[in-house]
């Protein structure tokens, strides 16, 4: 009886100390384990650096918004519908660059998809080890490491002439540089990224599922088509989304081959500018406050768009991983 009473008391004590949350235990545990001042200092430093980092990101965002205020005030939503970008008359409409970014990244993604999925299938399903897959894997890793300025350089000397050759053959004004060229260079850059994501996704698929299909006498094509694709669909889409985020933010390679025209692009062969490349081109030359602020507003849009895309992609991948396990 006495024991029973004690147990009751203990329970009550805990309930009394714990008003429906664990926070109390955390705080008490924190102080109980802080018997050495050095530990307290150390934990505080850790927490402090975390807070610093959080503040850094917050202030990046605020700083961008504040500095684009003049442009936001001057143009409002017309900033995104205006097609004239004229620093001399202080007229800034960003639609040509929005269009440039959308076109280049969209075309780049279209080019990327077959290649990156082929690589993912080859590395994730056809041959996971061996000389050829090793070669492929290492090449992809090396390609992923090549700085974008080198891609741009390569683009100038290889892809621009190639596109110009095609333009001459088809009787189009032979600029060489332009949206299509930029898209091709972009796709070369993001294929390694999309492919390695895709491989990880395909490797996550439990092998029992594939074994079952093979055991039923399916060919490899049928397994890929009817088992792997349906199963990995969301993951692969997320991978492509993340690659799209990359393409949108990519600056150097695009700047070097897109032709730097502030006009609204009429065809995919036309020279243009993307949101990133206009910043790269004009930021150091911007004399007026409004010009600078307009460029920063474009930066804000880039920031928001890439953030949304990357977080969406990560959430889908996380859900996919949970769904699989």
């Amino acid at each position, binding site marked *: 009886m006495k024991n029973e009473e004690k147990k009751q008391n203990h329970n009550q004590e805990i309930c009394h100390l714990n008003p429906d949350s664990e926070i109390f235990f955390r705080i008490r545990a924190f102080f109980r384990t802080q018997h050495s001042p050095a530990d307290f200092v150390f934990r505080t430093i850790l927490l402090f*650096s975390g807070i610093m980092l*959080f503040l850094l990101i917050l202030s990046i965002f605020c*700083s961008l918004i504040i500095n684009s205020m003049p442009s936001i005030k001057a143009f409002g939503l017309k900033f995104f519908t205006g097609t004239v970008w004229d620093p001399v008359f202080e007229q800034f409409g960003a639609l040509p660059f929005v269009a440039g970014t959308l076109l280049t990244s969209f075309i780049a993604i279209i080019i990327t998809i077959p290649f990156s999925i082929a690589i993912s299938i080859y590395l994730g399903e056809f041959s996971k080890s061996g000389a050829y897959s090793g070669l*492929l894997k290492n090449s992809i890793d090396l390609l992923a490491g090549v*700085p974008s300025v080198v891609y741009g350089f390569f683009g*100038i000397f290889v892809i621009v002439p190639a596109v110009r050759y095609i333009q001459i053959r088809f009787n189009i004004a032979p600029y060489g540089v332009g949206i299509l060229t930029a898209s091709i260079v972009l796709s070369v850059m993001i294929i390694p990224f999309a492919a390695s994501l895709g491989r990880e996704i395909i490797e996550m698929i439990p092998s029992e599922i594939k074994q079952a299909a093979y055991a039923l006498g399916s060919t490899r094509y049928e397994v890929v088509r009817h088992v792997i694709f349906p199963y990995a669909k969301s993951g692969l889409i997320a991978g492509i989304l993340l690659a799209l985020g990359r393409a949108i933010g990519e600056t150097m390679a695009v700047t070097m081959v897109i032709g730097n025209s502030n006009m609204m692009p009429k065809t995919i062969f036309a020279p243009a500018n993307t949101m990133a490349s206009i910043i790269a081109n004009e930021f150091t030359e911007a004399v007026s406050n409004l010009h600078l602020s307009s460029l*920063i507003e474009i930066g804000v849009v880039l920031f928001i768009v890439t*953030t949304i895309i990357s977080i969406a992609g990560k959430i889908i991948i996380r859900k996919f991983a949970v769904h699989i396990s």
Partner: protein
Amino acid sequence: MMETINKRIFKDRLFTIIVVVLAFTACLPLLGILTFVIKNGLSAINVEFFIRLPKPVGEHGGGISNAIIGTFIVVLIAFIIATPVSLLTGVYLSENRKSVFSEVLRVSIDVLASIPSIVIGIIAYLWIVKPMKSFSALSGGCALAMIMLPVIIKSTEETLNMLPLTLREASFALGVPYYRTILKVIIPAGLSGIITGILIAIARIAGETAPLLFTAFGNPFMNFNITKPVNTLPLVVFNYSTSPYEQWHTIAWAAALVLLIIVFTFTLIARIISKKWKTSF
């Protein structure tokens, strides 16, 4: 399943061929890049190239010693700024895996990682170049540091999360205080992963150009003063390759070659460390 066996096998073969062709076609650019860079760059590389300053258009010879030193300076600044904070934050995240603040912090770090590097350049410009009224190596280093941060934090956190819980318990059970356990047991056990992350981050920022356009800016002269603009290899590649002079193109190829060698060396060392120097439990 009405198709005949032969048709199915044919489809499978065709599919295999398409996959293989596409997969290996995607690697051709690597071959192209390497051939171009080596073929065009190697001819310009000699001792002068590494120890001389650039010459004006029309004059032969000259080197890019200022850009090599400049790259070194900017990367060093970024390394010094980014490493301590990111290590501490990585440790914080792996030590407080489930707290609400950690979740918020993780999302913020994902956001930081997804910011286009040109936008990072804008920030460094607004925060450092504008108040100091001068382009500078320091602002370039800070921009690169912001790019390094998420890479090191992620790799540190992931490395430490993989360590078995028993390791820390062993240390605590010996009466070792928390801070000593982290510094002397946990971090040494994850050191190879942490160093790998740092090297990969360095390889990544060594080739960055966009954030340097309006921070480090470029400089035809040698400069050791971190409050003044410096030249870097990626800037040389960009400025010289987009110039109309044949001779400068050669220098750009050579600079690209040096840059590629630096980037690949760091990546290679990182790989060797993560393969060879594994802590076994």
